[in-house]
């Protein structure tokens, strides 16, 4: 499959990235001088981020405002299977690439348009950022501590998730076209709707029972004990959903707290200062990987809380070969690839220079 990527930000770039990692030919169309097209500008990538999002792609530099650039693009669209873009509603048309024009050029083309709130509805022209999309969609309100300010999730989560949905939508459409069940389509992908899926459980809880999700009490969380504590070598996450307090207390070596009253989560919350020091001393007495291994054998779902730098030595990642050798900013670095087993793309694991593939793709044009 040949995919043209017209990116204004990380959403279309990530859609292109996963399609490229899957082995498809992804051609970034870049404006003169390279970089992103002006569009919805919902996030700005720095050099390193840029390199991560644009690996394994080809690049064509085109001045779409010029007649020759527009003609070259029309030819590329004729030869492509899909176009992925995130410039925002109406922006493609401004560049002379409306859905109608693209469809006239190629009846079986798939156009995937990612935008913050979708191309229809009263908020279709709303301004957005990563924070604004996350806030409008869901999980933010229940992240953080009761009585304090809610927090957004890290990274470009909403952009990336929209990109995954766009890549999936393109593959689904292409599958249908090849099977002869559908024809070319314009897909309208809303970042708000995509991120909202990651909170469906809580929307459902309200719709079925009126239950309101709330941020947990600072210090001891929903389980009645602190879920994140410092082990001897770093942060440990403690989750034991189906264990009783007695079981957990025994596992953590807190036998003194195995009494009838400590079984009550409210009692634990009210008396947390008595428990806090022995609790933290217990966790700090061993490494997070020791705790993790023993908890897993007991059936508890603890986990090491990894920083980005921790991942290089993550034994599971190493065993599975998750981190691939790549090139960023002229240096060889380990780079996260696809999170599932798949043959490694033959394309180099680096971002292309702007216009690097003009000659191959455009030949004598431009």
């Amino acid at each position: 499959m040949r995919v043209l990527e017209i990116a204004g930000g990380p959403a279309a770039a990530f859609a292109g990235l996963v399609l490229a990692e899957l082995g498809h030919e992804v051609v970034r169309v870049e404006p003169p001088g390279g970089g992103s097209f002006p569009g919805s500008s919902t996030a700005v990538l720095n050099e390193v981020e840029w390199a991560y999002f644009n690996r394994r792609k080809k690049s064509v530099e085109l001045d779409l405002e010029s007649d020759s650039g527009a003609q070259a693009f029309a030819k590329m669209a004729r030869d492509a299977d899909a176009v992925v873009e995130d410039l925002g509603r109406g922006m493609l048309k401004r560049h002379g690439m409306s859905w109608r024009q693209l469809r006239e050029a190629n009846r079986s083309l798939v156009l995937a348009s990612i935008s913050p709130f979708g191309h229809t509805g009263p908020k279709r022209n709303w301004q957005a950022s990563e924070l604004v999309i996350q806030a409008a969609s869901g999980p933010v309100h229940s992240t953080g501590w009761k009585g304090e300010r809610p927090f957004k999730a890290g990274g470009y989560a909403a952009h990336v998730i929209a990109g995954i949905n766009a890549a999936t939508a393109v593959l689904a459409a292409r599958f249908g076209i090849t099977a002869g069940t559908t024809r070319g389509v314009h897909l309208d992908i809303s970042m708000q709707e995509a991120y909202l899926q990651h909170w469906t459980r809580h929307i459902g809880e309200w719709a079925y029972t009126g239950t309101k999700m709330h941020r947990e009490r600072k210090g001891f969380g929903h389980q009645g004990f602190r879920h994140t504590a410092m082990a001897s070598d770093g942060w440990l996450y403690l989750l034991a959903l189906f264990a009783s307090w007695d079981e957990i207390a025994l596992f953590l070596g807190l036998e003194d707290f195995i009494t009838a009253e400590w079984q009550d989560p409210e009692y634990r919350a009210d008396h947390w200062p008595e428990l806090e020091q022995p609790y933290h001393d217990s966790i700090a007495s061993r490494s997070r990987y020791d705790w993790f291994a023993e908890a897993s054998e007991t059936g508890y779902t603890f986990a090491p809380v990894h920083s980005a730098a921790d991942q290089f030595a993550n034994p599971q990642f190493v065993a599975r070969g998750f981190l691939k050798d790549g090139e960023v900013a002229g240096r060889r670095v380990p780079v996260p690839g696809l999170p599932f087993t798949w043959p490694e793309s033959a394309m180099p694991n680096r971002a292309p220079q702007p216009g690097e593939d003009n000659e191959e793709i455009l030949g004598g044009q431009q």
Partner: protein
Amino acid sequence: MLSFEVAYSLPAGTRTLAELGAKVVRVAGPARDSFYISVVDGVYLSKTCVGINLKDPAGLAIAKRLVEKADVVCSNFVGGVMERLGLGYEVLSALNPAVIVLQLSGFGSPGPWSGYPAFGPSTEAAGGMNQLIGEDPEPPIRIGSGVFSDQLGGRFSALALLAALEERQRTGRGRFIDFSMTEGVSMLLGHTVVGAALGEQPERRGNRDRDFAPQGIYRCKGEDDWIAISVKDDRQWIALCILMGDAAPGGDAFETVEGRRAGQVEIDGVIEVWTVGFAKDELAERLQRYGVAAAGVAKSRDPLFDRHLQERGLFKTVTHKRPILGYDAHPHPTTPWFAVGHERAELADIHFHGADNTPVLAEWLGISPAEVMALEDSGALIAPTLVEVEDRRTGYRDADFGEQLGLPKSGGSS
């Protein structure tokens, strides 16, 4: 598609494929499922369900015959379980050489952690998400969703399966795919891993942004109501100041983004004195009219009443065969995209354990209803079970949610 699945990760992905037109058969075992969450989350919608006891030789034989007829077989047990059941990839591909097999687990297989149990939140911690939430020196914070990584696993599973189906369409060959939820989170944050390799320390900025300033979540009028605001450029800053009028932060220093970044603490304080006088959605509308990026921080009820989402048709009403928790129907969000000019797919009600033993085994394998009944009697198949969904939640409720939503009460009144 034959899916040996338990809520919520893989089921979220197979539901997407069901909405796209795949015939997804959920294979349920004898173990009790957490039905309350499975039902309200909606991950079992639009699928049929057969109940098979895989530890019974006759049950396992039925499963293998279904595998022979499937395009896709997927599962989300801890690593090694499918092999121990006698349904490892070697067995499956011998039965059906063109089959696509996907295995999903918290940490992936193989590897030293492949047998470790996981829930979504533990994979978020291991994948690097918690370390990026909140502000230093606070401990890492988890996403308050419970299903964030599960849904991400669902999204990546749908992607991987469609990629494999598209490939098989071209090559005729199946494929084995092993998916790790932790790696899904790490790929989502891959730019921070690459940054760390180059010596960058990822910053925990709370709700702030490296490029946009000011940016934050500010208190509004109403119980635990907040608004998110991002000022993305100087024009938006001027627009915000005009809208704030006399309440706007003063000073030439804030005319540039560098000045606003340096003065963000002061600016945040002034903005919140202003926002606290407004309802979140009303203020977001006003800010957006002035071209400033803003949105109310949605509570779990809010998307259900969002006129924008209603106009886009995101929610579909699922009518139940039997009332669930006192109502005949409930709204659920559909796939977050649609083809322009086409309606989004309708969602079909949850099918409980073994509900489709008879029709699925007849259609796929030509087994008669009498034979199905005999297999149910012998314990090889799990007979259809009428599940009463228990409402196990306590506290923090809006008692009138049904009236607010206009849900049809069982018995005819609404």
